[in-house]
């Protein structure tokens, strides 16, 4: 056990839970408050919040393990995709999505395409978001095990339960405001460690020389082109298809705040990835190939080698915070998928707010228990697991969203067939593994597109009312709306 690190992490988590309890009163006062923080967050808080929500254990922690295993170019390719995700969503989707006034992605599908697509999308969100929690718990288990000196499995169970209680008591209010603190710590912690590493080696040239001496393949291309492009493609779409990011975007007071929050988050990603490059290079210098039991331990070796215990505690708290914020929003997405989209949306439309919230809490705990059980035996690198899950959502949702926003003719039958086609083909590719690492999405997504376009053209156009609604959202962007 590392006592100083443990105390710092413990105090930090207590502080977060305190904030959660404080805001829980407001959260339970209305359904809208619970889900989207009453839409009253400014762009400064919003930037850190949306960044922390999307930048998960994969971005801050898993990226180092990924780079250690596959080389610096793959790490930078992951950075390229992570930095592209907010601009891409901002340019083509954020304004229209916010203007549509929905709180979750399935709710958008309901409004645009109707009941059948709504139910299918809710089921897919619940499926993938539950899986998404697994790599997050894996990362937290590694860190918990390192700090507390506990076996990995014990750490996963304890932390998983703690995260779920935290998410359950505060809803989005607590998450949005604690995300602000977590975002600050993530960017600051990465910068601090990166600078310490750089200073210790007397510049980046020395750092790289040490890394290449330990692993001559560090700077070479070590995977096929398809794996690079697949990784980029998955995260390019991430903010469009990830319900957590959508919900974060809605927390802004108005469209201007939502946009500026995404701009700020893009810069935070850039800063974090540049400092992460220094951390990765140090990790490679410290650990020659084959010396780590798991590649995802690479980050921890740098923390241990370069940071005094107090700072290490703060940094590890930052990493745990990033995982916690993401896990919370995924748990909320699963919870909303069942309680809001399926139960209130189609089973009991007049359900009282408190009942819907209570059902959401039960769903949250069930999903968390499932994820904890699976995370006890992690199968891959954290980032690869995250990319697998994200790729499934891209294959299923990317074109039903984009064509729904930009093509008036897109209809229910086409969206349903495309979504189902993308989902099923992706699952088949994942099970049979006919392609290179992370390139399944490059085939499944075009399949979804073709199915959606063909079925749409073979079936009747949507009503005039639906087409006018699509048109109106674009008129607003171009002419007057704010």
């Amino acid at each position, binding site marked *: 056990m590392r006592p100083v690190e443990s105390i710092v992490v413990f105090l930090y988590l207590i502080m977060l839970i305190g904030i959660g309890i404080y805001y829980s009163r407001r959260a339970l006062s209305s359904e809208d408050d619970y889900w989207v923080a009453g839409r009253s967050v400014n762009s400064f808080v919003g930037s850190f919040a949306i960044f922390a929500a999307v930048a998960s254990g994969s971005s801050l922690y898993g990226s180092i393990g990924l780079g250690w295993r596959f080389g*610096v*170019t793959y790490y*930078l*390719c992951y*950075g*390229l995709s992570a*930095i*592209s995700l*907010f*601009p*891409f969503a*901002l*340019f*083509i989707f954020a*304004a229209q999505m916010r203007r549509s006034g929905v709180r979750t992605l399935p709710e958008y599908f309901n409004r645009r395409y109707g009941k059948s697509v709504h139910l299918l999308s809710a089921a897919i969100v619940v499926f993938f978001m539950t899986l998404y929690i697994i790599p997050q718990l894996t990362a937290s288990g590694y860190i918990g095990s390192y700090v507390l000196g506990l076996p990995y499995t014990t750490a996963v169970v304890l932390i998983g339960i703690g995260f779920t209680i935290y998410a359950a008591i505060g809803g989005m209010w607590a998450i949005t405001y604690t995300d602000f603190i977590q975002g600050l710590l993530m960017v600051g912690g990465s910068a601090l460690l990166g600078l310490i590493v750089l200073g210790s080696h007397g510049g*980046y*040239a020395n750092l*790289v020389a040490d890394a*290449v001496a330990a692993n001559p393949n560090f*700077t*070479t*291309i070590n995977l096929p*082109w398809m794996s*690079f*492009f697949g990784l*980029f493609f998955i995260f*390019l779409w991430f903010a469009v298809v990830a319900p957590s990011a959508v919900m974060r975007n809605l927390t802004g007071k108005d469209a*201007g705040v939502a*946009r*500026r929050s*995404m*701009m700020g988050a*893009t*810069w935070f990603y*850039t800063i974090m*990835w*540049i400092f992460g490059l220094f951390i990765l290079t140090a990790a490679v210098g410290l650990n020659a190939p084959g010396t780590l039991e798991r590649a995802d331990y690479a980050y921890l070796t740098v923390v241990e080698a370069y940071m005094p215990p107090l700072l290490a505690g703060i940094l590890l708290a930052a990493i745990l915070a990033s995982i916690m914020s993401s896990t919370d929003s995924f748990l909320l997405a699963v919870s909303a998928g069942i309680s809001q989209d399926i139960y209130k949306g189609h089973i009991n439309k007049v359900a009282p707010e408190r009942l819907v919230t209570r059902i959401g809490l039960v769903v949250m705990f069930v999903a968390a228990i499932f994820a904890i059980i699976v995370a006890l035996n992690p199968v891959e690198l954290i980032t690869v697991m995250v990319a697998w899950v994200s790729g499934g959502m891209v294959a299923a949702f990317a074109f039903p969203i984009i064509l729904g926003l*930009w093509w*008036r003719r897109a209809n229910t039958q086409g969206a349903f067939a495309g979504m189902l086609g993308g989902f099923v083909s992706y699952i088949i590719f994942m099970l049979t593994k006919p392609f290179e690492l992370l390139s399944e999405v490059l085939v499944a997504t075009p399949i979804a597109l073709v199915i959606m376009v063909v079925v749409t053209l073979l079936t009747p156009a949507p009503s005039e009312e639906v*087409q*006018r609604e699509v*048109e109106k959202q*674009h*008129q607003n*962007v*171009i*002419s*007057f*709306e*704010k």
Partner: protein
Amino acid sequence: MTEQTKIRLFSLRNPGLVMVIIQLLIAAFIFIWFPEQPSAYGFTLVSWLMIAAFFIWSIQTVIYIYWIEIYEKN
């Protein structure tokens, strides 16, 4: 729907469309060329292109924010 609306929907005056086209062109440039020869610090040239894109895309978001806000005012 009117012809005027159709033109507006896909107009190059729409900042979002212009920005996303630039973003995708940069990505296409990187992935189509994908130069693997070593460059500064021994990194492949494509690594440096990716780092350059980090900053270009970040700057694009700033330009977009100003552009769309001026656009809305007008």
